[in-house]
């Protein structure tokens, strides 16, 4: 079946030059290049999926869920808040931007 999510990349934490705030992550969504384009994605849920060595509940794949909260800058980046803060290991990693909650 087809991919029901948009691909995104974790850019890093919300930050100023020398301080960062790990509760909010910055995400770049594939194909989203302007501030106007991000409007569709606001509120959408994001899943950061990763693998671990230890099995939990019958699976070695784990997930951190979050939501896109607002746009970041004018070039299509987006701020997202996750249930638990993303680990810094996730910078540059893929993230799944689901299509729900849908407003279409």
């Amino acid at each position: 079946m087809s991919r029901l999510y948009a691909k995104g990349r974790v850019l890093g934490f919300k930050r100023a030059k020398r301080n960062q705030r790990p509760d909010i992550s910055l995400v770049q969504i594939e194909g989203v290049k302007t501030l106007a384009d991000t409007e569709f994605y606001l509120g959408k849920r994001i899943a950061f999926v990763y693998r671990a060595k230890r099995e939990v509940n019958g699976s070695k794949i784990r997930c951190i869920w979050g939501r896109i909260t607002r746009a970041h800058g004018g070039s299509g980046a987006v701020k997202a808040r996750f249930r638990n803060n993303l680990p810094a290991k996730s910078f540059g990693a893929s993230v799944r931007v689901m299509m729900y909650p849908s407003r279409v």
Partner: protein
Amino acid sequence: MVHKPRNSLLTVGVNKYSRSQVVAKRVLYKRKPAGAVAVCPPAVNKTVEVKGAKNGGTRVVAAAKAPRFYAAEDVALPKKNRKHAGVAKLRNTIVPGTVLILLAGRYRGKRVVFLKQLESGLLLVSGPFKVNGVPLKRVNQAYVIATSTKVELDAAKIDAQLNDAYFARPKAAKKAATEEAFFE
């Protein structure tokens, strides 16, 4: 009852009307009481027939049984929640007969036909089953994309029996405690 405020602030801590003036504004002298409802005081005692040849006769017993156990300290009860989420308004792009794409769940990615919105706000949807294997199911509006494709549907043909109660889980029947079950 919500109406315009009976009092207002002149400055901090100083109200325009005094306490008794505010009460007087309720104009109670003009209002008639709804009519005293005759309330029968609950029966304090009740008469119970005692069976058995040797016991026989009746006893007068307290109507409400006194509790067997009194807690040593008062436990605070959580406040009752009086907030209820309203029913989600149906998107104007979703109309009976619209083909929807399911975004999540077992049937994610399937295209299904929208039948009607149930009282809880969920959408009643069907594959139809013979077409793609999606049965009659309920789906939340937020997990659905409405396409512009519409199928002609006769709204009257949707059985009125199909409502939220139809989809409710059957309550597990309480098993009568039998001696055998106890020692299983």
